[in-house]
């Protein structure tokens, strides 16, 4: 039915099967859209957020998708600037994942704000002192860059590529991609960082506040670093999932190993920095404000020291070591474990830097504030996941996303 659109030589499942899958995920998507419309038309009373939890699940989801979407800029940086050519075999997919993550982030922001129709005031009446302004500008610009990076891949669709204009456009865009990759890396550095800055500048919140360099608190650098470290993990994870779903090998092992190795070193160095930051914060920053470390990890039913251990040791040090070490890195199961732990780790870090910040009492007579999201919040948070799955399915089906796909699956095709 849609054979004409499928990349030449690639094998795809039947159209009805494909549509069935899309329909199932689409139903989830529609559920999310329904929740989104409720939030837009009835207001944020549809959520379980409150005056203590002005930032909650959505902002966490925002930070998390941007962190794991960091694979796009970092892989681009490595490929186009550091000229690590093997990565061309995964860069397309990294860009798509990045595109999904960033478009999701923008969508979530559009739901999250109380007055979506006035959202553009952030640009029009921008306050340059606000980290969020920096986030908004860099995020939108980088999203534009990602779109530009994504376009050549779209134009490589068999039908589109037949149009000479599109064909040449795609070709030329590939040629200039280094410029965009550099721009993207620059923008990403700032918005990943400013997302870290969002928490780090809150000097009214001892749990979040960090000292830093010039106007940037340490969390600024930690966030950029962690996005670069864990973003590739997520790219690898999604690649692995796509391989599992399609039942095909899509990227050669040497590429995977290389990216995993780079990620491993990034995680390892990041986690050392994070440990230093935590120790400094716990021993200097916080006592200086009159708080014991235990204040932040006791006296409530959720946030205990376990979260610190999980984030730093289990989901930081361990994946780092597993990916640095050649034998564990090249063991598919251990590698998978490491990248899963890594993704959990960075998401947990973003959770802590949003939700735990809100939960900790600051005034001595205040109490811990815990919160459970409403179904509307959960649905709108799952919405981007469903959207991502659909977009990956569609792009995989119709675009030559994985340059090595045909090569890796030739024998199979011949066998049949």
């Amino acid at each position: 039915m849609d054979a004409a659109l499928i990349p030449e030589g690639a094998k795809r499942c039947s159209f009805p099967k494909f549509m069935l899958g899309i329909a199932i995920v689409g139903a989830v998507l529609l559920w999310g859209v329904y929740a989104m419309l409720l939030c837009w038309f009835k207001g944020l009373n549809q959520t379980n957020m409150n005056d203590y939890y002005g930032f909650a699940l959505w902002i966490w989801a925002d930070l998390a998708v941007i962190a794991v979407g960091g694979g796009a800029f970092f892989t681009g940086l490595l490929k186009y600037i550091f000229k690590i050519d093997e990565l061309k075999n995964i860069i397309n997919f990294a860009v798509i994942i990045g595109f999904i993550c960033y478009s999701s982030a923008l969508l979530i922001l559009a739901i999250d704000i109380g007055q979506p129709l006035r959202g553009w005031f952030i640009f029009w009446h921008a306050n340059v002192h606000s980290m969020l302004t920096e986030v908004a500008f860099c995020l939108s610009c980088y999203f534009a860059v990602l779109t530009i990076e994504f376009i050549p891949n779209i134009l490589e669709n068999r039908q589109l590529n037949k149009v000479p204009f599109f064909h040449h456009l795609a070709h030329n865009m590939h040629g200039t991609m280094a410029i965009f990759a550099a721009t993207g890396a620059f923008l990403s550095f700032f918005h990943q960082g400013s997302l870290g800055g969002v928490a780090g500048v809150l000097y009214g919140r001892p749990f979040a506040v960090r000292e830093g360099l010039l106007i940037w608190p340490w969390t600024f650098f930690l966030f950029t670093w962690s996005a670069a470290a864990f973003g590739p993990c997520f790219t690898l994870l999604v690649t692995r999932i796509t391989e599992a779903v399609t039942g095909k090998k899509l990227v050669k092992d040497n590429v995977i190993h290389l990216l995993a190795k780079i990620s491993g070193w990034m995680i390892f160095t990041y986690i050392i920095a994070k440990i230093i930051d935590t120790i400094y914060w716990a021993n200097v920053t916080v006592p200086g404000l009159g708080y014991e470390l235990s204040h932040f990890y006791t006296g409530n039913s959720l946030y205990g020291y376990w979260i610190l251990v999980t984030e730093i040791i289990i989901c930081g040090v361990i994946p780092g070591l597993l990916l640095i070490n050649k034998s564990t890195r090249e063991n598919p199961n251990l590698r998978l474990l490491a990248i899963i732990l890594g993704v959990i780790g960075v998401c947990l870090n973003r959770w802590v830097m949003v939700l735990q910040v809100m939960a900790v009492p600051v005034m001595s007579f205040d109490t811990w504030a815990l919160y459970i999201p409403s179904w509307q919040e959960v649905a709108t948070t799952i919405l981007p996941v469903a959207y991502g799955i659909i977009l990956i399915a569609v792009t995989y089906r119709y675009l030559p996303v994985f340059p090595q796909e045909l090569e890796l699956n030739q024998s199979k095709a011949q066998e049949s």
Partner: protein
Amino acid sequence: MIQDKKAHKFGMVIDLDKCTGCGSCTVSCMAENNIPFKEDESDKKDSLTWMRVYKLTNGKPFPETQTAYLPRPCQHCGGKGDHGHSPCVSVCPATATDYGYDTGIVSQIYTRCFGCRYCMAACPYHARYFNWWDPVWPEGMEKYLSPNVSPRMRGVVEKCSFCYHRYQLAREQAYFDETDEIPEDAYQTACTTACPAGAIIFGDLNNPSHKIHQIVKPDPHPDPLNHDVVGKSRNPKVFRLLERLGTNPKVYYMSEREWVRKLGDSYLEGEWDKVKNHHGAASHD
């Protein structure tokens, strides 16, 4: 920044020993500022009360228990070093809230706010409130709304304004009378005038003739122990909330009771005894 010849610094001092926790300030504030109410207001984390009264306790068992009340308006922080970079103002992405260098009041434009709530995350006092709901009054009750304060729409953040509209009214009177002076009693907030116990005193911290200045005796120099802190009270009975964070609030509290003063901030074990008699640069003279 307006370099006013005579910049004001409006502030408040609340005597916690006089405060009875009666709630008049809260209600006066709600009536003055067109604050709506809902069917269920028992979820205090979703209840618009610019002026909230907290209950403090010394945590001791019966019969040693002691309690006190602490009314908490917006603290109108001057920010670190009192430079006007209040925690909430510096983070607003749309410049919908700013620090008035001529009054020391943190002001807002509700109609510019697009509801990102970053300011709420920044405020450790929970002084900022979000309009989760459309403001709705029972039929006919909207007749008592005051035109001096615009009712806020759903989806924006609001907070105590130190009844800025009363300042505006006082200024209009002064313009009409062709004088520069606004007498102390011409500009008083709704909570101050309502307080039946006379526990709230409001005025210009920069004006030595004002009662608040005489009670608080703000230290113009940075605190030698923490240079972010400016305007520490030289009155041993007066303290501020979370002073150590360097937010530099303009709302001061006063109590004879040491346990009450201690609750103003967090202290490591043994630390309180060292700092409790430290009252700004003056105590080093």
